[in-house]
Each structure stands twice: as C-alpha cells, then as structure tokens.
C-alpha cells in the first residue's frame, strides 16, 4: 500500500486539487476572473509543493538514493531531487507567463494545464512501477500537447503542437510496447521485479529483453531529444508559446531523464550488457548535431532548441558512464537541475522579448541590452552558464560530468573509450560558446542607435532576477546542490545494490 502521507501523494493531492479547481472557479465566476488571480493561485500551490518536497528532503524524512519498492511510488531522494527541479521549472513558467497571457484568453485553463503537467513530471520521477510510470508519463504529455497549440489562431503554434503530438504519441506507443515485452518476460510491471527478472533471464530470451530496453531508450529518447529522435524538437519549441517552450525544454525533457535513469540504466545493469558504448555514441552524436545545427540558426527560440539537444548529449554522458563511475549519475542529475534553471530562464527571456517587441529573429535583437536591460542581462547570464563559463553553475555540473567520464576511463578497462566523451564534451562547449557569444554581441555591441528603453514585463524581470541569483549563487558556492545530488543519485556501480 502507498502511504497516503508520503511526499508524492501529498504533492499530487495538493496540485491536483488546485489544478482541477481552477477551471471550475473560472466557470463559476463566468470566465471573468483576472489573469493574475489564477496565476497567483497556481504559484501558491506550486510554491507549497516545492516547499514540502524540500522540507521533507532537508528534514531527512526520505530515503537516500533511488529505491525500488514493491509499491507503485517510492518516497526517495531521487524523486525529490527531480521533483524540486521540475516544480521550479513550473514556477518559472507560470510566473513568466503572466505578462504573456495578458492578451490571450482562457487563463484558468492555461495555468491548470501547467499544474497537471507538473503532477505528471513529479510522478514520473517518483514512480517505481511501469504502470504508474506510463500513466504519469501520459499525464505529463497530454497537457503539453494542448499547451503547445494554445495559440489557436497562430498557424505555427498549431503546427508545432501537431508535430509534437505525433512524435509524443508514437513515443508513448513505443513505451507501452516495451512495457508489454518486459511484462511478458518477467511476469510483473514492478520495476524491481522486472530488474530481478531480467537478471535471472534464460539466455535464449535475452534478445527480447534487449528489444524491450531499446524500445524504452527510443520512447524516452523522443522526449529527451536524443539524436535519431530529435527532428520534432526544434519545430515544437519554436512554434509553441515561449513560456510553454520553457516548460518543454526544462521540464518534460528532464522527466525523460528521470525515467531513463530509473528504468533503462537499472535494467541494462541487470542484463549485464555492454550498452554503455551505445549510449556514449548517442551522447556524442546528440551534442554534436545539436551544437552544429544551432550555429546555423537565425531564430533565437530555434537556436535555444538546438542547444537543448546539445545539452541532452552532455547529460547522457553521465548515464553512459554511470556503471563505471560513482559520480556519473551525480553529474547527470546536477546538470539536469542546472539546465532546468538555465534553459528555463533563457526561454522566459524569449517570452519577455516576444511580449514586448514581438520578435525572435536574431537580427532584430540588436541593441537589446539598451532596450530591455534586465531581460538582456538575464539572457546573457543564462547563455554564459549554458556554455559553462567558470563562475556560473553550468561550469560545475559540466566539470562533474566530464570528470566522471575521465574517472570511468581510468577505473575500468571496459570503459577505456570514456575519456573521449569528455573530450567531445569540452570541444562542443567551446563550439557552443561561439553562437552564445554571437547573441550576446548582437545584444550589446550592435545597434547603437537604439536608445529607447522599453518597460519590461514585471513577471519576466522577477524570473530573471531569481534565476540570475541561482546561477551566480550556486556558481560561486555549488556545494549544497552537489551534496544533494550525491545524496539523491542512485548507486549502481558495477550492478551492486540495485536489486533490493
């Protein structure tokens, strides 16, 4: 039985009640309620939820690492870490939407969909049963299809939603097929039972287990934006409303990594496979394709979309070397949290620019540093953090990630190729600095004639200030997050201790 007082249940009850109540309140008030009223309610609910998760983790009421339990959800620090990252993204998205939504309709539905999607993301991180994982995955995905097409009269928003929907639906179909094979092989949908069943599998059945693992990688890879499955991603992020793109890039994508860490990595360790090289190759392909394609973009949202493909590649390094290096999964989770804030801030900055100036083309951003000083500063800091410039948080997580790859190479002869992942990562970071620097140059060193200061959306300014504090603060003093990530990271070095 699930303990009704466990963290995920409380969060689901809280956010679910508010998420369902918002449209009802709107109907009861005859659709007259103001935009900021609904935003304030959902911000309050999200803040309470993140506070509760953080309190439970800080008070030591949760188990460290990732547990595999007989229940459908487990109250562990792994889920808590991802829950905090994704609830923070939901807060940034909600706050950043206030000004953007002012000119649109159906405010209550919009904020309610964000809340429902946040429940799905949190549950994906906590779930220890494939049925729960699938239901949570869909709860996370279905609201985002609607959100991506929320701009009903805008053809590109609709087109983005349709492409995103088709690939998302295929991804869930592939995942449920993988679950069906895993269920047929092991007779259970509990992840612990599946892992145990895979470890004791008859050798003639191993190819089928491989097929299941491959289907899981493909299904989760669609959401994560890994390279053979990434073609929908730039279109979806460019066309959907910019705050929603922040939710997609920083939130749902990270839920894919949570699911992959719990299911794919553990299952593959149990199967005792040399799957790590395959993940390493996908990682290098993903970061290279993402960064090279980003250089050629002329649209800010599209460039950030390709850059988030590149970052999926960096995070995948951590997953690939996890069995050889204890810091692999720590680095992956650390970068997940950092990337959530950095990319969220960048897309919210785009939302602010779109709200005020209605442009996303790079040539139109000339002189933005004078026209919208705080938004431009926030965008600059987040771009530098994404590139991994030293005093910012992105530097530390990349350091841990690339360090874990080098560790793995020296720790195990089977992973002698792992240091090359670090080399590829460093080269790609240097490459990414080229296009990030180009945006910064456009904003500050071009367009001298632009003198007029525009009034910046206040909610966007608030998000910018928060994320700059986060990026600079945890860049100067990263220890608390590293410790939390170490506490929360699942330990599956050499297959030890994963089977309860």
């Amino acid at each position, binding site marked *: 039985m699930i303990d009704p007082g466990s963290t995920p249940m409380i969060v689901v009850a809280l956010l679910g009640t508010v998420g369902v109540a918002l449209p009802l309140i709107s109907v009861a008030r005859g659709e007259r309620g103001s935009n900021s009223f609904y935003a304030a309610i959902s911000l309050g609910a999200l803040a309470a939820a993140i506070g509760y998760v953080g309190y439970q983790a800080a008070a030591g009421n949760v188990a460290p690492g990732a547990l595999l339990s007989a229940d459908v959800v487990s109250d562990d620090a792994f889920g808590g870490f991802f829950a905090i990252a994704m609830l923070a993204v939901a807060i940034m998205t909600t706050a950043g939407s206030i000004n953007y939504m002012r000119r649109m309709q159906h405010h209550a539905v919009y904020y309610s969909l964000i809340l429902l999607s946040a429940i799905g993301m949190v549950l994906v991180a906590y779930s220890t049963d*494939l*049925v729960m994982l*699938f*239901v949570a995955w*869909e709860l996370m995905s*279905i609201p985002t*299809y*609607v959100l991506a*097409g929320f701009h*009903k*009269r805008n*053809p*590109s928003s*609709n*087109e*983005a*939603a*349709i*492409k995103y*929907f*088709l690939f998302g*639906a*295929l991804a*869930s*179909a*592939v995942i*449920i*097929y993988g*679950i*069906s*094979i895993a*269920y*047929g092989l092991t*007779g*259970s*949908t509990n992840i612990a039972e599946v892992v145990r069943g895979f470890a004791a599998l008859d050798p003639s059945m191993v190819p089928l287990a491989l097929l299941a693992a491959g289907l899981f990688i493909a299904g989760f890879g669609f959401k994560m934006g890994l390279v053979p499955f990434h073609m929908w991603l*730039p*279109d979806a992020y*460019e*066309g959907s409303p910019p705050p929603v793109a922040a939710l997609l890039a920083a939130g749902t994508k990270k839920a894919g990594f949570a699911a992959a860490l719990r299911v794919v990595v553990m299952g593959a360790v149990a199967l005792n496979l040399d799957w790590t090289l395959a993940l390493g190759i996908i990682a290098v392909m993903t970061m290279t394709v993402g960064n090279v394609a980003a250089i*050629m*973009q*002329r*649209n800010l949202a*599209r460039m950030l979309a390709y850059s988030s493909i590149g970052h999926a590649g960096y995070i995948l390094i951590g997953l690939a070397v996890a069995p050889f290096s204890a810091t692999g999964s720590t680095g992956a989770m650390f970068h997940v949290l950092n990337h959530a804030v950095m990319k969220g801030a960048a897309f919210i900055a785009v939302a602010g620019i779109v709200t005020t100036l209605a442009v996303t083309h790079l040539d139109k951003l000339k002189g933005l540093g004078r026209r919208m000083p705080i938004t431009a500063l926030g965008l600059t800091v987040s771009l530098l953090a994404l590139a991994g410039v030293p005093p910012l948080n992105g530097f530390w997580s990349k350091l841990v990630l690339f360090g874990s790859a080098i560790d793995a190479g020296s720790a195990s002869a089977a992973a002698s190729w792992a240091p090359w992942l670090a080399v590829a990562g460093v080269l790609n970071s240097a490459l990414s600095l080229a296009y990030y620097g180009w945006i910064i140059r456009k904003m500050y060193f071009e367009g001298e004639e632009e003198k007029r200061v525009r009034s910046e959306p206040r909610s966007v300014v608030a998000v910018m200030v928060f994320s700059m504090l986060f990026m600079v603060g945890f860049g100067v003093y990263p220890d608390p997050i590293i410790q939390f990530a170490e506490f929360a990271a699942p330990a599956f070095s050499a297959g030890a201790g994963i089977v309860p």
Partner: protein
Amino acid sequence: MGNELVDFALVSVALLGIGIYGLAVKRNFIRMLFAVEIVINAANLNLVAFARFLPHSGGQTLALFSIAIAAAEVAVGLSLIIVAYRMYRNVDVAEFRSLRG
C-alpha cells in the same frame, strides 16, 4: 498452449510493423493517428495475451489503463487537427511547413 502465445506475439509484431510503416509513409494526419493507435493496440494485445498465461491479471489491468489513456490522447489529437483544418482546409501534414530550418 505455448504455440498459442507465439501466434499472439506474431500478430502483435505484425501490427507493430504496420503501425510504424503507416507513420513513416503516410502524410495524412488521420491515417497517422490510426497508425499510432495500431501500435498501442499491438502492445495491448501483447499485454492481454501474456496475462492469459500468467497467474495474475496485472497485464489486463494495464491494457485497460492504456486503452483509456489512448482515448484521451486521440481526443487531444483530433481537436488539434480540427483547429488546423479550419486554418488550412487540409489534414495533410506535409502541407504544414511554416517552421523550417
């Protein structure tokens, strides 16, 4: 009894192939939606068939969940294509290409 299971698995794999083929080749949104549905139903067939030969009914429960969720997904997909049809007077995905690069 074992052979029966193989028959079910073969049908399921055939359905999976048909679904993937449909998604890769067709450009009509409704057809692509059908293709996704075929893949989901291939998985459901697997689940129910495996549950038949296992001592508990967890697979049938999951199949029920999956059917319900697929229905919700189709509802969202159809509403998206209705909005698109009002704008383009077309349900051909190849015609939707304002986003490029």
